[in-house]
């Protein structure tokens, strides 16, 4: 499956131009021209252009630049926020993984809040990529997990397990998608093309970790909530009616920064890094600790590891 993911690596610009693609490009150009014509008449250009937008992996560099310019203009127009949208490709040779020390996690949910702030997740109703579960010490029965615990943490006799997207090496959500709107990148991150997703929510039914989230309504973000540092496949403000999920903060991590959740963790329970780098912390943990993955029996091959350090 990871081979498959590599084969499908979206290397920009080197896809062969088949007749259909050329036709579709011509189609999109024509649509763009029509849209531009309509724009002078005062209509909402981005929406019309988006109707005919092609799949992310069929976009040329030029298409992407235009799309990003359009999205940045839309951000300014709708939210008054001057967003900077980047589209960093996967770094060759890098495969990301996460390790989380359950013996130090205190259940404070700082990761969850930092994630929301970084990733422009909807606020009304609130959506969170990270769900922290409160478990009885000595039990991993998720049916007994407490999702809505309150008060001072950690509580006596409890342990805490943050759960988010596992970035599976064999992701059921990717197989489920009927239109290929979600796929695994070469660095292992499962991403979503927000402009291609049709909103059928079959991936949500397929995910065994409850990691995918649907925009039932508009994101309802205040301008002050919006993080202007955005990625095309990650934290840009999502439209209504599409799926979204954790993307390992790819707009940060592909530039060498840490994901927001690790930066926020006050007890150092979270370790993120490159699996292929023998000197990385995450590699050290995998080699020296007894790690485990959630629902191993389902064969999804998560890249998110838990351990008791």
């Amino acid at each position, binding site marked *: 499956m990871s081979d498959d993911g590599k084969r499908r690596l979206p290397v920009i610009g080197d896809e062969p131009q088949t007749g259909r693609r050329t036709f579709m490009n011509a189609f999109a150009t024509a649509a763009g021209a029509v849209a531009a014509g309509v724009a002078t008449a005062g209509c909402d250009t981005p929406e019309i252009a988006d109707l005919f937008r092609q799949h992310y992996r069929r976009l040329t560099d030029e298409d992407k630049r235009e799309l990003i310019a359009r999205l940045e203009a839309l951000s300014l127009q709708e939210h008054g926020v001057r967003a900077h949208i980047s589209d960093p490709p996967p770094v060759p040779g890098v495969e990301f993984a996460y390790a989380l020390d359950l013996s130090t996690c205190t259940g404070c949910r700082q990761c969850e809040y930092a994630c929301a702030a970084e990733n422009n997740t909807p606020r009304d109703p609130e959506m969170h990529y990270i769900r922290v579960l409160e478990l009885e010490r000595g039990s991993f029965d*998720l049916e007994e997990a407490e999702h809505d615990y309150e008060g001072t943490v950690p509580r006596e006799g409890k342990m805490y397990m943050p759960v988010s997207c596992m970035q599976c090496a064999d992701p059921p959500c990717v197989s489920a998608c009927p*239109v290929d709107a979600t796929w695994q990148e070469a660095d292992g991150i499962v991403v979503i093309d927000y402009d291609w997703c*049709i*909103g059928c929510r079959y991936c949500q039914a397929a995910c065994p970790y409850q990691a995918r989230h649907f925009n039932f*309504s508009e994101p309802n973000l205040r301008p002050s909530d919006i993080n202007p540092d955005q990625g095309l496949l990650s934290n840009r403000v999502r439209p209504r009616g*599409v799926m979204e999920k954790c993307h390992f903060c790819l707009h940060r991590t592909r530039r060498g920064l840490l994901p927001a959740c690790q930066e926020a963790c006050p007890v150092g329970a979270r370790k993120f890094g490159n699996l292929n780098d023998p000197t990385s912390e995450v590699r050290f943990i995998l080699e020296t600790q007894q790690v485990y993955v959630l629902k191993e029996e389902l064969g999804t091959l998560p890249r998110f590891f838990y351990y008791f350090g």
Partner: protein
Amino acid sequence: MRPARFVFSCAREVLRGGRLYWSWMGALGLVILWGGLAYVDQLGTGLERTGMSDQVPWGVYIANFGFLDGIAASAALLMIAAYVFGRQYARKVAMLGSGIAVAASVACGLFVFVDLGRPERAWHLVPMLGSLNWPVSMLAWDVLALNGYLVVHLTISIYVIYTLWRGKRPSSRVFYPGIFVAIFWAIAIQCIIAFLFSANVGRGYWHTALLGPRFLAASFAAGSALMILAFRWIDRLTSFEVDPQLIRYLGLITAVTMQINLFLLGNELFVSFYHPTSHSAAMHYLFLGHEGLHGLVPWIYTSLALQAASCVILMIHPLRSSIGFLTVACVMAVVGIWIDKGMGLITPGFVPTPLGEYLEYTPTWTEVRVSLAVWAAGLLVFTILAKASIPIESGKLRDPGAPAPEPEASAPTVTA
């Protein structure tokens, strides 16, 4: 221009009718309008208008889709009786069966469409133009299977009706292959929709090999029961006469499939409750509730009671032969299985969530209205098809230039 004349004469037939016909069409139109307005509202506001959530992302739309998929497949029961076993009484209604298949497939497609968060992007599902993820995604399979089924039935019925209208006999060499494709395709759409659910490893409630057989048994029971009701209605309200043998045959099918259906359910119950594990949590919630959450419990017992009572009536020969009891049993079977497919199959797949969270689902008025509108659209399609084809099949409507119909036993339909 003969094809144009054919369309014109069918259209004239559809536009001609008594007060009862127009009241029926008017009522359907009103329901479509009423529900259509709810859909427009949903389109403008988003799926937040529904009762669905991240925890329970599919609701009555997908439930109805699953139910109607089974109704569409049931047309195969008539095809098998008519063309595999050569029963004349079934041949006479085979084209009406195709009408049911077409109408149910259209309604299925609509139910998926109204469930989409981004309906304007539905073209992404079109092979070549979009990027249909076939053969990996089971939903991609389902899109192809349903649309293919629709095309197969449309082709067969248009060919047969058109040929009859021209006063000729449909050539068996042309339509027999179509019939057999349609029969196997009916089984396929049932398997594919069952696999669509059972493919989800994270959903213990669906991840069972029994799902496919349960889908088939329940659908054939509900489908044949619904056909009994529909044919009895057509027999009473139109000049079209339905052979009592057909009703007996369908009654027997309902009786047998209903027993298989309940037997399979019993198997599921045993495995779930003899030694409950986390895989039986959904079954436990469905039948017994969970810590004060009992939303589905009354539904599932209502469904079970209806199905069991229907099964008992159908199993006792004198009762099944009585038209009154048979009608009651059919209504109970259809309602019972509809509840079982919806509240009993879809929702518990999501409760509890894979992370053990319990959140109940209740459909909103928007969902109820939109669902009724889609049902009405399906009935409208069937009414139009039946209205045009019945006079042609019974020999009353012919191309003015057609030769006189020849009575022939091997014809696909027999004029009454």
